[in-house]
């Protein structure tokens, strides 16, 4: 019996330890400047004592370089948005305003050549002055790095640079240090918006070239209001105020990004007062809404885009099957119950607020019986097996998949959920190993061309979709060559119809609101539909 008692005692110890651990989370409210810091953030503890204004943001380690030209994760953008600037910026509502440009770009009569003028004397963080040649270098680098290169495919000379037969983008002509022109090979109306994306951020040519593979890891230089101090894997990123900024110098002394992998722990740290800003999973909404303290500190914004199911048309080849799958998603239940009304069922892939969205479209109905009939027509009267892959780094995809798994049973679809991490997900998509997946996409600029980017003809072979449709491709091309809004609306409505109601290349699920918790003492930090993280106007209210 002695041993039993020993075991009981150790069990008791374990229980009390667990209780002690969970108690840690519920201590005092947020206090930004005087709070204790973790051992990892020891370097800025001294700064805080002297009253420096450091915004502390909960983040996740992307485990790759902070370089939007190579990696398109929103985790990276959280930092780079404040360090690197593009020529222009898209504001809430879709208006594109010049950032590094002295005035709006001028378009030639044939609608092919844009002329730009840079603001005189803009300094990079290393003291160099921004020149036209830096712009040319940076845009060429976007193409060379491939990841988002096809954004610039309409620029003259793109093909040659992309396939390596040339080493410059002939469409970009440097006139002098502050003037340059970009010539397109065909009319492409959203081009100015493309230049406003974070992927077209401007780097100093010499420093970037010298840093090589360390760019975005040990060194990252831009023209932004904050300069990149350090990136410590597993610990965090430090950025600080750039005094030589050409615009309004930020009121904050710096931003400290703290890597906390688990979303729940991020919120606990916020509650302890160690973090000022944290993103919140929407399916946790009622939990924080029920907390009287957190309730008023939670904010919401609606990014333009949403979640959808992707299909590999090689393995799920019959459009009838894809339609049946789309019909067995109970979008209403997912939005109303699992995401507690924070999301709205999609009626189309192109969301409300941009050209091409059709208000008159009916919602996708949940019709398991109809789905069953379609599957029977397709030759799967006895049920259909579907492997659904989700990326665990986007935690929201798991509840979507789990809900769908149960909903699809009624239609005779047996869903196996395969959970993979970000690295495996990227590999599987590249190699075509995803049969069906849960994906999300948000526009980089308010144009249907940006929304349809993931299903565009040049992109589908790289995302395990392999969907190609001649008519759709032609409509996409026509869409960017037309400037009349009514005409564009018509074109994209047609394209949308092919995509989500005829070929069922994807199944839109919902458009959601995103939530974040913000220390009430901080002013001037607002997340809006652009989903960009600009902290230049943020300040601590004493």
């Amino acid at each position, binding site marked *: 019996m002695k041993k*039993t008692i020993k075991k009981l005692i150790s*069990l008791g110890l374990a229980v009390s330890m667990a209780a002690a651990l969970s108690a840690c989370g519920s201590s005092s409210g947020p206090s930004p400047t005087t709070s204790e810091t973790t051992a990892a953030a020891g370097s800025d503890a001294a700064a805080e004592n002297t009253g420096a204004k450091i915004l502390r943001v909960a983040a996740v380690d992307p485990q790759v370089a902070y370089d939007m030209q190579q990696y398109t994760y929103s985790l990276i953008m959280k930092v780079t948005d404040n360090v690197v600037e593009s020529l222009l910026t898209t504001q809430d509502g879709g208006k594109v305003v010049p950032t590094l440009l002295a005035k709006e770009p001028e378009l030639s009569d044939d609608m092919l050549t844009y002329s730009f003028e840079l603001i005189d004397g803009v300094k990079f963080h290393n003291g160099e002055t921004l020149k036209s040649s830096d712009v040319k270098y940076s845009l060429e680098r976007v193409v060379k790095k491939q990841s988002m290169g096809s954004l610039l495919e309409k620029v003259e000379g793109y093909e040659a640079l992309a396939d390596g037969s040339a080493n410059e983008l002939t469409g970009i002509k440097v006139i002098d240090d502050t003037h340059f022109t970009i010539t397109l090979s065909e009319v492409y109306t959203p081009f100015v918006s493309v230049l406003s994306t974070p992927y077209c951020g401007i780097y100093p040519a010499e420093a970037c070239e010298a840093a090589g593979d360390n760019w975005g890891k040990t060194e990252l230089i831009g023209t932004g209001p904050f300069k990149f101090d350090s990136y410590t894997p597993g610990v965090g990123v430090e950025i600080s105020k750039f005094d030589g900024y050409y615009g309004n110098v930020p009121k904050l002394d710096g931003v400290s990004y703290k890597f906390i992998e688990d979303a729940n722990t991020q919120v606990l740290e916020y509650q302890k007062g160690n973090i000022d800003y944290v993103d919140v999973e929407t399916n946790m909404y009622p*939990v924080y809404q029920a907390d009287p303290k957190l309730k008023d500190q939670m904010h919401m914004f609606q990014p333009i885009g949403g979640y959808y199911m992707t299909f590999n048309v090689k393995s799920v080849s019959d459009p009838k099957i894809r339609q049946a799958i789309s019909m067995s998603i109970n979008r209403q*239940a997912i939005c109303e119950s699992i995401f507690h009304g924070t999301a709205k069922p999609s009626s189309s892939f192109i969301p409300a607020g941009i050209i091409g969205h059709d208000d008159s479209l009916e919602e996708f109905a949940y019709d398991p019986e109809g789905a069953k009939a379609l599957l029977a027509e397709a030759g799967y009267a006895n049920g259909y097996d579907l492997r659904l892959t989700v990326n665990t780094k986007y935690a929201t995809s798991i509840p979507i998949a789990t*809900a769908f798994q149960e909903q699809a*049973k009624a239609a005779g679809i047996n869903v196996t959920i395969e959970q993979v991490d970000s690295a495996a997900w990227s590999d599987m998509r590249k190699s075509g190993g995803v049969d069906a997946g849960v994906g999300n996409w948000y526009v980089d600029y308010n144009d249907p061309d940006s929304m349809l980017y993931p299903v565009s003809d040049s992109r589908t072979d790289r995302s395990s979709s392999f969907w190609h449709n001649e008519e759709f491709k032609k409509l996409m091309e026509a869409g960017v060559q037309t400037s009349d809004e009514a005409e564009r609306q018509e074109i994209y409505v047609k394209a949308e119809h092919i995509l989500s109601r005829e070929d069922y290349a994807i199944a839109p699920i919902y458009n959601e609101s995103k939530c974040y918790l913000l220390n009430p003492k901080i002013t001037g930090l607002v997340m809006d539909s652009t989903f960009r993280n600009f902290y230049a106007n943020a300040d601590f209210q004493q």
Partner: protein
Amino acid sequence: MKILSIFTKQKKFEEQLLNGEMEYSSYYKDSFKRLKKNKAALFCLGVILFLVLLALFAPVVSPYDPTYQDYASVLAPPSSKHLLGADEYGRDILSRLIYGTRVSLSIGILAQILASVIGITLGAIAGYFGGAVDTLISRIMEIFAAFPDLLFAMAIMTFMGQGLQNLFIALGLLTWVRTARLIRGSVMQLKEKEYVEASKASGGTSFRIITKHLIPNCLSTVIVLVTLGIPNAIMYEASLSFLGLGIQPPTPSWGNMISSAQSFISFLPVYSIVPGIAIMVTVVAFNIFGDGLRDALDPKLRA
């Protein structure tokens, strides 16, 4: 005086036996008698039987299908409709708990059976033959024992992929070493006994000696090992499922219930507490029963 009393006691025994007042009873019958005296162990046996029945009759007992999503009751607190509340998909927590018993018990028992089969076979071979065979098998055991348990299980699961069968195999591979070591020791002791020599003299093959004489004599050790090993396997299953490497959703297991409940711990405490209690009760029941069983089977060990 004391010595004298022992002698008289011995004499009394002999008399009783001769007069037929005392019955002969087998080893296992004796053990059972001893076990019956241990009230705590008996109670725990009752708990275990209850859990086994619960697992067998899960579809009859549970009020809902464990994967049925009742969208009207997402994260609902305990009520008459859902006795222990509903989870973040509106699934009945009580039903999931009951079905979770199936996973936990079957993992515990099957993993131990696998571990015992490997452990007994290799342990007996090593102990009986000795020499080079023993050295080889012992080194293999040491290699397996050299890895930290949970890390080893995680590595196997990552390598073989998730799923119920793979979990059996991973946990079996994790725990066979302990069985093998004990069996090897016992067999080395037992093979010197007279009855083994007698069997050898009358032409018994090694296979016959091992299966007919040595293993049956180790059986009590094995029974104790299995009962004490089951709670360990249950804990490992819970840990692995908690880490997302064990049972895959939507199959409910106590481990993955706690894992998904941790986000809601302040909002719906019952969701994480209940599967925690289930694991605790099961593990404690098996441990106390296993201890009782050992005391009963091996009176020499009694403290």
